[in-house]
């Protein structure tokens, strides 16, 4: 009976054989995680410092480097049966920690090269998706092996891949020429007619799964209310590069990170946008983050200037650390 239970648990959790002792989810303090791609202070290979994944516990002000020395464009999380998995999408590959960031294992090998984003399946712990400059890869054995999944793609570079919140067989991937969608777990992909190339980010609305929004290189934000079939231009934000989008948990307020144009907000589901922070004197806002339990609390990851933070829905901002860091993604977990 015990053996059966153990096998059932292993199947449910899908714990692969390589990881160190897991730390349960309840043992993790809520924290912010910042993916530092590079650091302006040490940008040449061989001199890299101050890069990797940084963690700041909620209520603290200090960021701690928990995985140094790999360029880190992305971070991801998954929880299964009270266990947690932290993922770091990095130059050395996809890293995973199951002990709260104390130790890490690189799951990918030499074939996958740099990993730009990770999308763990929230139900099947063995199923993972990553995007890389050479395409989308899928693992169905917890990261032990990876298979390139690019049928239907016309270009290689994929900045970001996400899973549909409702249907786990549906994925969205941001390509150089289009937004791509798969309806069969990445076996094949189709182009969605966003109308502009260079899709940098895709966000599925937290309440209405039919509402998709994309950030683009030169055309601001575009949105679709029919899950990608038709697209409209977000008014007010139609020329800037938008590298990241975020939403309040109730989906009533949406935020966009603009290249040299600061942070933008939409209160009408992406139809129109207004600038809430000019970020004067700062370079690209690479990422914008909304606290999942406190919509007043925003963060922005800046190119070469670390993290800025607002506690009043973007009206005022202050420097929140990691000076000179190029911050590509900020997330909170758990």
């Amino acid at each position, binding site marked *: 009976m015990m053996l059966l239970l153990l096998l059932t648990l292993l199947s449910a959790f899908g714990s692969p054989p390589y990881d160190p002792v897991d730390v349960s989810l309840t043992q993790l303090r809520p924290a912010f995680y910042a993916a530092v791609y590079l650091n302006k202070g040490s940008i040449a290979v061989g001199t890299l410092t101050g890069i990797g994944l940084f963690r700041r516990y909620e209520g603290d002000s200090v960021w701690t480097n928990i995985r140094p020395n790999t360029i880190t464009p992305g971070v991801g999380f998954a929880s299964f049966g009270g266990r947690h998995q932290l993922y770091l999408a990095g130059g050395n590959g996809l890293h995973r920690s199951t002990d709260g960031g104390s130790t890490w294992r690189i799951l990918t090998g030499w074939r996958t090269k740099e990993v730009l984003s990770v999308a763990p399946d929230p139900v099947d712990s063995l199923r993972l998706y990553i995007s890389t400059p*050479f395409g989308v890869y899928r693992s169905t054995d917890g990261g032990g092996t990876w298979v390139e999944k690019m049928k239907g793609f016309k270009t290689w570079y994929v900045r970001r891949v996400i899973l549909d919140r409702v249907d786990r067989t549906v994925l969205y991937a941001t390509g150089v020429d289009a937004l791509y969608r798969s309806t069969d777990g990445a076996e094949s992909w189709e182009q969605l007619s966003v109308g502009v190339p260079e899709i940098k980010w895709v966000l599925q609305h937290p309440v209405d799964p039919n509402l998709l929004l994309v950030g683009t290189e030169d055309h601001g934000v575009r949105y679709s209310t029919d899950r990608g079939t038709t697209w409209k231009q977000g008014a007010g934000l139609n020329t800037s590069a938008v590298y990241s989008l975020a939403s309040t948990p109730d989906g009533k307020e949406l935020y966009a990170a603009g290249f040299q144009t600061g942070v933008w907000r939409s209160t009408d589901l992406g139809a129109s946008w207004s600038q809430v922070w000019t970020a004067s004197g700062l*370079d690209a806002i690479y990422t914008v983050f909304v606290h999942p339990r406190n919509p007043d609390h925003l963060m922005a990851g800046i190119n070469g200037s670390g993290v800025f933070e607002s506690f009043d829905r973007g009206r005022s901002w202050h420097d929140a650390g990691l000076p000179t860091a190029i911050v590509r993604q900020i997330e909170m977990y758990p």
Partner: protein
Amino acid sequence: MKSLLVFGCLMILCVSGASAQMVDRATYLKEFQQRVKYLETAYDTSQAVGFYQIAAHYKLNSNIRQADSMFVQALKVPRGDMFWMFPVIGAYLQGVDKMSPETKAVVRNAWKTYAPYRGDTENHWAMYYASLFLAAEQWPNLPGSEWYNGKSSDENREEAREYLFDWARITTTIGQGEFDSPDYFAEYAISTILLAQFAQDPQVKQLGSMLSEYVFADFAAEHLDGQYLGGFSRIYQPAVYKPLQSTASAFAWLYFGTGERTTSGWILLPALSGYELPEIIYQIALDRSKTYIHKERKRVRNVIRYGDEKNPPVYKYTYVTKDYGIGSLMGGILQPIQQHTWGVRYTYGRPYTTIFGLHPYWSGLELGMFFPEEVKTLIADVVASKGTYNNPDKWTSASPFERTFQHKNTLIALYDIDPGTTAEHINGFFPRNLEERIVDPTGWIVCKAGDTYVGWYPLQEYEWKEELETPANSLNDIGRPQLERVRETGNWRLRSHKLQNGYVVEVRSKDEIGSFERFRAALKKSVPKRTMKPGDVSVDYTSIGGEKMHFRFPDERKLNGKVVDLSRTKLFEGPFLHAEVGSQKLTMTYKNKKRVLDFKTLTVKE
């Protein structure tokens, strides 16, 4: 004191390789060992704390306790990623049977706690995986918890092994991506030599040995007097205009006996390793008794976006004599940032032994083809480490608006530059130490560099600018101003601001054409006919050798009325090296000798 005396004697014995003559094997090996000894002694007597000094102490069995102490000290704050990995494992392998158990433990622990970045270029990966393979062999059967990446010794060894074999497969089927780089030759040579000397896996050891020969043979066929002959995928300033300052030239001194004596750290680990170059490669590098044409096919570094092909081919053409070599890539964006599309290099007038031209181009789109960062921020990111990238005066560059057509010792370069492009001019480098730089009334710029004569016919109006290599414009190897560099008298920059542009270059030696005056007279009779309109840039030219060349930008090349089909170029094609595309086989030939590297069977046949 004794070692200093030895060092002094070696300095006297170890003559500079200037005008090196080919010697028999016994003499070569004797002189090679003298050079090795010179390097060993230099590092063994050095007071600096570094992995190379540590390696030398271990190798020479001197100061073992000090070496142990230095090793522990040097590992306290690991830094340098793959540039840390190879000297650490290199020093460790020199001392593994001599160092204390405590020192061994410190080294072992470093591979557990320091996570080196794998990097993003071919040379990074060569260093990373060669070092990781050797380390995994040194510490077998350890679980993932004992390694920085969470993978077990077996997993690390197998991943590294697999990558190294795949790298060899790609290199020997469609060519290297980071090819013919005078400044990155070292990274490949060190990685492969360490594998050849220290790998326990016999297949990897053999692979390392064969890859070492492969990269050295590649260099040897385009070597002249310590210099790599261009074009190149990557080269830094100042090595692009002071050729002997490249690391490849340090290897040329050690292994070919040419160039200038050096204590460059890049050659220390190879010198300590005991690796000896096969005689045939040395002979290929040295024998310039006959003029020859050498062609190569390489590949573009991985294109991740804004391109239809992941690894388009690169065609290289080199003409080599005993006095000079002129070599070219066909132009276009073949490698970002540091491409050297074409150049003449000669044996006269160190250190400025070259003449070349380029379009100094930079753009986010170019970088975005190869790097995954956002295009709008890429230029700033690159400039932070490669300070010359967006400098209109830079001396290295790839450009989509540049193409070349070379036949023997005649080269045509054409440019059709879009308005608004960075930059809207082309540059030519003419060194200050030319004996003659005459502007003939026909338009030819006629130069004399010892027994090498260079004619340059600008197809548009231009201006001259004398440039001092002052602190303001003298840049070190990572493109940043180097304040301590000595002020020197000027080299000459030819600059032309016309967007539709080009030039014809003729090179001859005294042996080929006789006197400088005769060369000048020949040029007077050979004036190109050109069309210089946007979208219609072409030249028709009959070389002083009587060959009719037609070249229309970008890629219409005709020689004596026949279309030149670059796509038929083999991986290696010349009197010394031959390799078919896809063959995984390189045949080296010298007189009646033949040596075949067969990477499919991992065998060497003579």
